[in-house]
């Protein structure tokens, strides 16, 4: 993928984060993403993200499961291998509903999990750049993307003015890669070297 330059700001307070997002958006800088340790109500709305289409995908998977069960069991019990269960008709819908229900749940659950993994680009051995190690602990991390039109010094000072406790500039891989966190470790190694 490509390596881009980002300005990263860290916040400790939800309220400050929300007002900072408002200021950044109105100033026209491009927000790459906001990383938080826990889900925050209203953050998607504040960032102006569109609603996820995961539900629609789930509905389609569910319907596929229902139809698979109906077609499969219907074909097996009426034409492929009809059996007599206590004199019930071969096409006995009420008895099939539990199976149709189970396949609906199975298809939608597995399908939505895989779709979710695809949308978030998470999978075994797939690695992505971490902008700040404390983003999974106690910091709200806002990442701005640098474009050719604006310079990073302006962006850093602007982000500092909105209440960020820590601002830094990073050059990072935007996509994912297979393997280890080598590309992530480099900044820490540099720090160690400078301390020594």
């Amino acid at each position, binding site marked *: 993928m490509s390596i881009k330059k980002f300005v990263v700001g860290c916040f400790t307070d939800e309220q400050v984060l929300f007002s900072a997002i408002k200021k950044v958006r109105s100033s026209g800088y491009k927000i790459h993403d906001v990383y938080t340790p826990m889900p925050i109500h*209203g953050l998607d709305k504040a960032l102006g993200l569109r609603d996820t289409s995961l539900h629609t995908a789930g509905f389609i998977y569910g319907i596929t499961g229902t139809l698979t069960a109906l077609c499969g069991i219907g074909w097996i019990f009426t034409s492929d291998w009809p059996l007599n269960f206590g004199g*019930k008709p071969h096409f006995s819908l*009420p008895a099939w509903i539990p199976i149709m229900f189970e396949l609906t749940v199975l298809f939608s659950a597995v399908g939505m999990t895989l779709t979710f993994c695809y949308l978030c680009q998470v999978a075994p051995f797939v690695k992505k750049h971490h902008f700040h190690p404390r983003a999974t602990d106690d910091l709200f991390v806002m990442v701005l993307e640098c474009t050719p039109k604006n310079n990073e010094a302006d962006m850093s000072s602007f982000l500092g003015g909105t209440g960020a406790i820590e601002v830094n500039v990073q050059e990072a891989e935007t996509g994912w890669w297979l393997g280890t966190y080598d590309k992530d470790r480099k900044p820490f190694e540099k720090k160690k070297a400078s301390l020594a």
Partner: protein
Amino acid sequence: MSIRENFETPSRFKTWSYALMGVGALSLIVGYILYGNVDHGTHFWSALLHNGVYFLLVVNAAMFFFAASSLAWGGWQISFRRVTEAISASVIPIGAITFVILLALVFGHKSNIYEWLDRDIVKNDEVLKGKSSFLSPTFFIAWSVLTIGLWTIFGIKLRGISREIDNAPITIEEGKKYIFKSTIWSAVYIVWFTLTVASVTPWLWLMSLNAHWFSTMYSWYTFASSFVAGIALITLFVIYLKNLGYLEYTNDEHLHDLGKYQFAFSIFWTYVWFAQFMLIWYGNISEETIYFKTRFEGAYEGLFYLNLTINFLAPILIYMSRPSKRNYATVTFMSVALLFGHWIDFYQMVFGSTMKDHVPMNLFDFGIAAGFVGLIMWNTARVLGKYPLIPKNHPFLKESIIHYT
């Protein structure tokens, strides 16, 4: 934000409620003249039993809603909690009416409604003899008194607890004590609710219409039916008050959650309904299938599928998407549909047992239903007007204001 605390009943609303109650009273008189003595008055008394029990369980479901929410420390419903309380106040008048109907059935020896009231039949019937300690006038009356009486008492107590903090702001310590108290009383009410709506009371009032037949799912099914209708009623009142400009803190988020409640409990109703139907259909034992004989392949076949369409297919298709649950028009339409759908559900529960040959539904049934609707409208508006619309000192109010789904 400035809030309007006191609800004033619009005169058109008052006129409508009086008109509907008038229709109900007229239907009662005309119905008694037309059907009161035809075939021992089966249609007349079945209609009264059906509407009385249905609307009593619906308004009681509103009480269950706020008690369950208090027990779970649910903060989101505080902004419209007074509406649910006002609806639950109708348990008192409708409970009294239903109790009079039940008394009239038992002391009038209406064995065409409740077969077990006839001593000669019971004497020669091993099954009914075995059930006679449960299905007897004494136990029936005693349990009905306890059911309706304790609902009334707990309702007054719970509404009283809600209103006692209206006058002055409370400190955090007082707030903790207050929440503890309301939680305890809600829990006590819910235990009694479980013993009545979720178990014994539907066995007595409705299931004993088929005295030989039984189903372990029956009370859950009745509860699910009445609870969906109760949420629909709450939603309608909330939307009506929003339209008049009241309930400033209630917004799309609360409407969305009410829609989710209707959606989820419609699915739960279907699950219980289907579990009861499928096991009986699959087992194919004649003393069990007798219940579905009239409903699945007899005169009530049309209502059977109508019931499933309104109460399952409509909610699952219409309420599935997020925008539809946040749209006032869709939610209003679905709430009315579900109230009617579960009225139909109760209709086939009662009439499918008492009048098996044909479906006698006509204007008389709708007239009696209109009377109860008018009574609920009138009483809810009266109680809403008496107390502040928003419990402004409730510790959880802020949670309700910033509620976000």
